[in-house]
């Protein structure tokens, strides 16, 4: 036993320069990312309002979450809707657009990348969608529909429970060609050209076969990285919903799990309950990511 510790100590001493280099980053990483996840889990079993010390209440927060909180169920349903629509759609769009763009000459490709990537780095510009879907006839979308004779009266798109979630989904898709998209653009350029020539000899006939048998398998690591980015973003919808559909939105129609979390954590200061929401969200996000990673490993096998 003593020997083992001596061994570890010897290794630590030998590699001390490595530890000094990683030290500052990981100190902050543990304080602001790892510790919060642990704290969140711990506080989720307490009643805590930041004024009195936390009081242990067992599973009560989780019970309330799934049995007593109707708005949470709406939020969860919306979040899953986002995840199952914007997640896969944006993932395939990222790849597909990157793939088509890859056919062009470098300078055209650079312009196209800029066009598709720009929305995701433009900060709050998505607020412009509010003007596009404005509720009176000065809203661009209403005006077009009225001009075409499809509508007689303008529709309050963003106040109508049936429409607004779809508009938030649309805006979310508009924002979703981000880091994952760039990774695909870059990944497609690294695919070994000679593989395509070899493939043509081996009887690959069209670009779809080429895509499935050569391109996808050779950029599997990018596909996995892109999946993590797209999944995580699509579960985290909050600010877009709050700024486009309002907060709270009409009938909570665009309420998401993260909005619910911010509501309890930043406004009502029910930290224990908010922590339970955060823990559930954490589990859903990480589990989905791990499952998808496992599935993607099978691509092209």
């Amino acid at each position, binding site marked *: 036993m003593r020997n083992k510790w001596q061994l570890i100590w010897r290794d630590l001493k030998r*590699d001390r320069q490595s530890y000094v*280099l990683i030290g500052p980053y990981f100190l902050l990483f543990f304080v602001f990312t790892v510790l919060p996840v642990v704290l969140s889990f711990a506080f989720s079993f307490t009643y805590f309002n930041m004024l009195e010390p936390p009081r242990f209440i067992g599973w009560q927060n989780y019970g309330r979450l799934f049995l007593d909180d109707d708005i949470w169920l709406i939020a969860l349903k919306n979040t899953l809707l986002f995840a199952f629509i914007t997640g896969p759609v944006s993932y395939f769009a990222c790849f597909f657009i990157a793939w088509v763009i890859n056919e062009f000459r470098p300078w055209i490709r650079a312009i196209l990348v800029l066009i598709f990537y720009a929305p995701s780095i433009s900060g709050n510009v998505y607020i412009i969608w509010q003007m596009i879907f404005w509720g009176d006839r000065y809203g661009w979308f209403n005006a077009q529909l009225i001009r075409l004779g499809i509508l007689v009266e303008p529709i309050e798109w963003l106040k109508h429970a049936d429409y607004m979630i779809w508009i938030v989904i649309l805006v979310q898709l508009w924002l979703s060609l981000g880091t994952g998209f760039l990774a695909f653009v870059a990944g497609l350029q690294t695919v070994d050209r000679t593989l395509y020539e070899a493939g043509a000899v081996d009887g690959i006939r069209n670009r779809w076969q080429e895509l499935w048998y050569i391109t996808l398998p050779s950029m599997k690591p990018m596909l996995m990285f892109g999946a993590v980015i797209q999944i995580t973003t699509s579960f985290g919808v909050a600010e877009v919903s709050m700024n486009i559909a309002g907060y709270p939105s009409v009938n909570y129609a665009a309420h998401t799990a993260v909005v619910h979390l911010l509501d309890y954590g930043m406004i009502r200061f029910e930290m224990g309950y908010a922590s339970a929401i955060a823990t559930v969200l954490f589990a859903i996000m990480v589990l989905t990511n791990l499952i998808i990673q496992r599935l993607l490993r099978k691509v092209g096998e």
Partner: protein
Amino acid sequence: MKKLNRSWFGSLPLFIFLALAGAFMILPILFTVNNAFKPLDEFFIFPPQIFVRNPTTDNFTDLILLLRDSWVPFTRYLFNTFFITVCGIIGHTLFASAAAYPLAKHRFRGKQTLFTIVVLALMFTPHVTRIPNYMIMSELGWIDTYWSLVIPAFALPLGLYLMKQFMESLPDSIMESAKIDGASEYRIYWSIIMPNVKPAVFTLIILQFIQLWGNDGYGFIYSEDLKPLPFALAQIGLGGFVRQGAQAAALFLLMVVPVTLFIFMQSRIIETMATSGMKD
């Protein structure tokens, strides 16, 4: 040699799809740019036009007047955002690259575990850690200071991940002669590794810039004179219809800086992303 079927005709549906998707992406951007230069009356014509007819810079003058007369001057908000962004970029780039070097090139105890945790951290959004982060900040006494926004930004996982993957693609041979000369690891990191990872450094800078430039300090900053620019600009939008012009100008200003940066750095970012894949 057999030629692959890549006829122009066969590609047509793909290009049509690309054109439609491109229009969907660019229309709101064009709308924003044009709105920023519209005189107020053009906001109220029916049917609404995307393109401006009589461009003017009134909206920008309005914006500056509005913010100059506000209790906290415009330049103060601008300074706040500038300070937060610059500190966050410098700290993140230094800390993340220093940590990425041993993770990419050394062997030491705990290396694999640490990197796995960083990858796990990419799998959930920062919202999850928001509440406990607030408590930690309040324990540290950092609520309502710049540090509550700057310091956590030093240790975001994406930058470390991209930097480490990029460093792994460097050949080991570049460090060998320095090792034979007995240079310390710190020296190798600073004078050999860093000059060779410039594309990744630029990538970290721009990703961090996007994060911090758009940060409105929500929940962590309460004092008006410490609030960042996006917060102030968001307030203008609340002023109703007459403020529409000024709001459009504000949106334009917030958009134009990151997009311009990206135009200049695109090729380096793509170079970095080429190594971003997740290996098993």
